[in-house]
């Protein structure tokens, strides 16, 4: 475990080298870290606080304030159900329920096999394709419960192929 911690620390330090020690860089730093590590582990947050010479709570406060930051490792595939107005009125909440049912997890969680993580997003601006689900960063239009099954099936087939 400590070995892993040391590794995270090292990775974080390497990424931090590309940034100036300015408080204004805090959010870009956290974004870059999350891009590389997949999430923001405690060790990384501590390193950032040390690097910018700000209280640890300030880093933690920013991480917990913004919806995009996550403090747990993500799944292999990310499922983001859009809950914008158009999506909601066209049944985005029903789609979300379908994902929850099929994956057996609530929003903000990861499946036990770490294959999928499920979350919602405020609006991706694809309102004309409502209801939208962003699957692995690709927005997919008109995702209704039957299409949820279709998407999961395609993942399953792909996995079997490998």
């Amino acid at each position, binding site marked *: 475990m400590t070995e892993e911690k040391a590794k995270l620390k090292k990775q974080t330090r390497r990424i931090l080298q590309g940034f100036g020690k300015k408080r204004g860089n805090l959010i870009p730093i956290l974004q870059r870290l999350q891009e590389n590590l997949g999430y923001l582990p405690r060790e990384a947050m501590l390193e950032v606080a040390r690097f910018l010479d700000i209280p640890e709570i300030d880093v933690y406060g920013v991480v917990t304030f913004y919806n995009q930051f996550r403090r747990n490792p993500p799944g292999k595939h990310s499922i983001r159900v859009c809950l914008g107005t158009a999506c909601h009125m066209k049944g985005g909440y029903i789609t979300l329920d379908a994902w929850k049912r099929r994956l057996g997890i609530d929003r903000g969680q990861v499946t036990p096999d770490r294959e999928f993580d499920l979350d919602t997003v405020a609006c991706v601006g694809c309102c*004309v394709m409502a209801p939208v689900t962003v699957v692995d960063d690709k927005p997919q239009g008109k995702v209704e419960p039957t299409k949820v099954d279709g998407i999961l099936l395609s993942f399953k087939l792909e996995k079997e192929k490998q």
Partner: protein
Amino acid sequence: MKVIKRQSVVSAFQGIKKQAESQWRELRNGKPVIMVGGATCGRAAGALEVLRAIKGELKKHGLSCPVVEVGCMGHCYAEPVVTISKPGYPPICYGPVNPVIAQRLVREFVLGDNPCLEFVLGALEKNDLVPSFADFPRAEFEKRVILKNCGHIDPEQIEHYIASGGYGALVKALEMEPEEVIAEVKRSGLRGRGGAGFPTGEKWEICRNARGKPKYLICNGDEGDPGAFMDRAILESDPHSVVEGMLIAAYAIGARYGYLYVRAEYPLAVQRTRLALRQARKLKLLGRNILGSDFSFNIKLFQGSGAFVCGEETALIASLEGKPGTPYHRPPYPVTSGLYGKPTVINNVKTLAFIRHIIESGGKMFAVTGTEGSKGTAVFALAGKVVNTGLAEVPMGTTLRQVIFDVGSGIKEGKRFKAVQIGGPSGGCLPESTLDLPIDFGSLTGAGAMMGSGGMIVLDEDDCMVEIARYFLEFTQRESCGKCTFCRLGTKQMLEVLDEFTRGKGRIEDLDTLVALAEDVKAGSLCGLGKTAPNPVLSTLRFFRDEYEVHIKEGRCPALMCRDLIAYYIVPEKCERTCDACVGTCTVEAISSHPTKRYKIIDQTKCVKCGTCLKACPPQYSAVVKLSPPSLVPASK
């Protein structure tokens, strides 16, 4: 001194322009050009697959005509859209196109001579062969200014933008004194398109005269309103128009540094904007001594991190400073004390996109369009139950009816119009009786809504007004930053009341509690989020109070939407019995056949009310119905 500098700027730009124009000509050069609409909405509809299919088919036939991925033309209902400009033909736009149609277009039109009229959406120019977009009835109401380039140029190539006249306004502005630029913008009467409608020229002037250095310019691309996608479309389709607007604004106010704040939920917009900045820097249109003049300006792209409140200017500044995005009290306003306490102008994406047009053709020309208090055009994002979903740019003062029924072609599937939700979580739901109101900054306030940034969701008879009010409250409650007590706790209380309503558990006196709470939240909040959060509730209460009352008194949802108040039921007399469509599609296996009579029965204890069976039941039977209240379902025999 000034004259020499001027000449150098003009000649420096002329070289760049010449090269861009020759590149643009070369692209055409007698060959057919294929353009695929590849903004986020197009991609969600499968534009990338279409693009691949076209490239594959061209290769198969050994053709080498250019295939360009362009932005969004605004005809989102027909995505993916493909435009083919073949010499001898007008540029023809096709949609919706799938990979198979795309291959056919290449074979029969690009290679052969059949323009495949059955897939045509419209032509871009007037001609004798196919109807053009200008012949569409909606054209009479539209006026494209900032959407003009969208979908017609490659957003990833600065040369396309320059060849279409881009950055000419910057050169013209650099020849003027900063004060003259501000005067021109003031003359245009342009008001901020983010929603508040503050006069742009005035804002610039205050900032120019403010003490403190350096000055900052921020472009607010944190389009957080759910249901709005105008800024996304512009940043994805024509990012340079925003960059040029920022450059002119910076020159006018004397800013040295700028930030372009884009939401993280728009990855494609982020990517294309980043590329646009890099390209502009390479051509010396951005950075130190722009085009050899003594004007220097740099723009940094800043990605938001998913907080709706950051669209509020003081919260946005906090976010840029690396803090949680909580707003602070105004005054002092950011124009005198903003980012790091320095004078800062914050303009919306659309506001800045207008600037080049104002400088090019003069403020007076711009002011010709629009109403007394609101000049120019407004961009709306049409979504929901309207036929022509997508983007519409219309002169200020156009009525809601014209936008929804003439530009948007009315309601889908022949249903009845119920309301239009305008202005996002800060706006309201307006009923049929208000449709003849002209839209400008002031007009909708009286009806309890506001123009806002331009998101418009059209609702029909199947949409429950209590549910939409609950939805917005849930949204604002979750997005409240928590600084002000009334916004943090008041919205939560309101949400709980609304939750009860949609579950049929409300009490009639709760309606008064809701109004009282709404007034308190409005009065007790610092920023726009809290001040306007009760609007969706108040406007639906005002126009659709009867729907609230039915929910409370009868435990029934008249629009058949609230899940706790409806049940799905298969009418035995209508059920075809040998058909299994509903059984096969049910996602929770709740449907089975009657042991002897074979008609289908829904097990109400298993049903999750997803509505899949209703869509699966063939229209000639229409045996699946929704009933409200659920007690209407007869006990199965």
